[in-house]
């Protein structure tokens, strides 16, 4: 029991990171109606970008976040038209094809990363890496590493920024309109193509930034992608697909599960537990924990 507060704290700190991935992911699903199977690979590429930029420039990864965001945002904006083309095709089953396309993309990225970066596991050093806060009260001791705390603060900042963007700006209004009804939004003057590209760029940028942080907090390796893809799915399905308000709770739950398994059980069983929870939720409440999904 002594470790329980520590496990919960770690879970909250870790879960914070997943919030940003899942919100951006959920947003893309809302607008484009596709599930991006390459989400974990974007995290991996972001982590490597942070690792190498840090190596070359010597700057702190937290300072490099805007650079990574801009680079990956541009890449996302450039890739989205291809996905749009697949999705708006008249032949076959466009939604299915979109899934297949991102899956192929993910496979390609994975092979590419393994070829270029090799199989080594690295970690990006940061100015926050060393320090930690230590509390001791009521017989419980609690260690909070600074880098994880910084990660949580980053996640909160991104969440607030996305919330502002969606609820207070014209762009956000367009995005929400597109999510509700594509055709009507188009008739009301929302440029679906451009907004879609921007949202996808935003999503890729945010995901890659989060990747940089995961590189600082956990590790960077070419094979890390699929695990995070499953985590992103887990959070989004648990929250209810397309229901943004549920994302933080689901992400925190994932963080807890992961940290509890790390401390009390074998970390190798995490994926099994994640699947078991996902399965149970789908069985009991297919529309997510809150019953508000699509």
């Amino acid at each position, binding site marked *: 029991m002594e470790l329980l507060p520590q496990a919960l704290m770690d879970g909250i700190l870790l879960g914070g990171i997943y919030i940003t991935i899942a919100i951006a992911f959920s947003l893309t699903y809302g607008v484009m109606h596709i599930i991006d199977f390459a989400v974990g690979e974007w995290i991996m590429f972001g982590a490597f970008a942070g690792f190498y930029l840090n190596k070359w420039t010597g700057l702190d990864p937290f300072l490099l976040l805007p650079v990574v965001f801009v680079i990956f945002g541009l890449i996302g904006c450039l890739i989205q038209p291809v996905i749009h083309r697949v999705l708006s095709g008249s032949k*076959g089953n466009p939604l299915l094809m979109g899934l297949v396309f991102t899956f192929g993309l993910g496979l390609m990225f994975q092979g590419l990363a393994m070829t270029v970066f090799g199989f080594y596991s690295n970690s990006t050093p940061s100015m926050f890496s060393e320090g930690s806060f230590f509390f001791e009260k009521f017989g419980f001791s609690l260690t909070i590493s600074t880098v994880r705390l910084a990660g949580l603060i980053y996640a909160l900042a991104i969440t607030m920024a996305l919330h502002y963007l969606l609820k207070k700006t014209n762009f956000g209004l367009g995005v929400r309109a597109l999510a509700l009804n594509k055709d009507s939004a188009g008739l009301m003057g929302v440029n679906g193509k451009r907004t879609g590209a921007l949202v996808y760029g935003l999503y890729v940028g945010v995901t890659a930034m989060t990747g940089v942080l995961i590189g600082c907090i956990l590790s960077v390796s070419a094979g890390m992608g699929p695990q995070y893809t499953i985590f992103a799915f887990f959070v989004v399905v648990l929250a209810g697909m397309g229901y943004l308000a549920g994302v933080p709770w689901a992400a925190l739950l994932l963080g807890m599960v992961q940290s509890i398994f790390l401390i009390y059980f074998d970390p190798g069983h995490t994926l099994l537990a994640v699947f078991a929870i996902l399965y149970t939720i789908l069985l009991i409440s297919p529309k997510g924990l809150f019953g508000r999904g699509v």
Partner: protein
Amino acid sequence: MKDKIIRWGLPVLFVLIAMPAVIHDTFFLRVVTEAVMWIGLAIAFDVLAGYTGYLNFGHGAFFGLGAYTTALLMMKAGWPFALALPMGGVMAAVAALIAGFPTLRLKGAYFAIATWALSRAVQQLALIMDITGGPDGMRLPPFLNPQFFYYLMLAIVAATFALLWYLLEHSPFGLKLKAIREDEQGAMALGLNPTKLKMQAFILSAVPTGILGGVYAYWITFIDPASTLGDLISDQALVMVVFGGMGTLIGPVIGAILIFAFKTLFWAYLSDFQLLYLIILGAVIALSVVFMPNGLWGTLGGFKKKKRDHENKLETSLEARLQKNEGE
């Protein structure tokens, strides 16, 4: 259509049956045996992906479940192969029931995610359990008779093909599945029960996959989580089906033969660049989706049809002009 399959299918089957009598090269027989296995895996994958419109990213898990069930029953329970093999199919069907029950009621994306997560979970389960030998895998008693495995594989795949051909192309079942693929709500409005039909399609896809896994285990005599439960099996089946042509039975066969031939050549000559294979698989998937959404077979068939339509149009316009001339 029926004449066509008999005209083309029977000679091909005859050639395949007669082949081992003519060619005695063991390596060649081995390659063909595996190619036949992949044809079976690809057409089983297509039942769900092409005909029903649901992507099963856990296809490899059913293959591995069949392989492990057969291996475990033979090694730990001492069952004969002939009894253990069908159990592989039964196990795959049970897994399909369990996995499909909550997910098939939902939209396609949920199913794709859930099956993918399932395959990862099954792989991890095989890695940590004692009975499966963990990462070291399992060894089966060697039974060195390449011809036996060739004929067994061929019989299973040919039977699967015939069954699927009948069910999907010649019975209402195939039409019902296509109705679900095109418009699920519309299908429901017509009085179909999509969840039940999808479940049946899922089991129809899982059982041959599990049985092929069982044959594979006894044939290769060594199975481990990486080779039988890994993603590569699902990935390759997906490539074959997408490249060959979804929603047809001939397309996946062509895709399976071409991709498998490519794979064999690649591993034979370029095995130093193993990772390149993953990139090529991904690129083939992505490019065929963008440029050839109907796959090789669908695109070629489309050209043929277009040409035929064009010729027909030309003919009718010519006839019309002739008649006009005659009238004058």
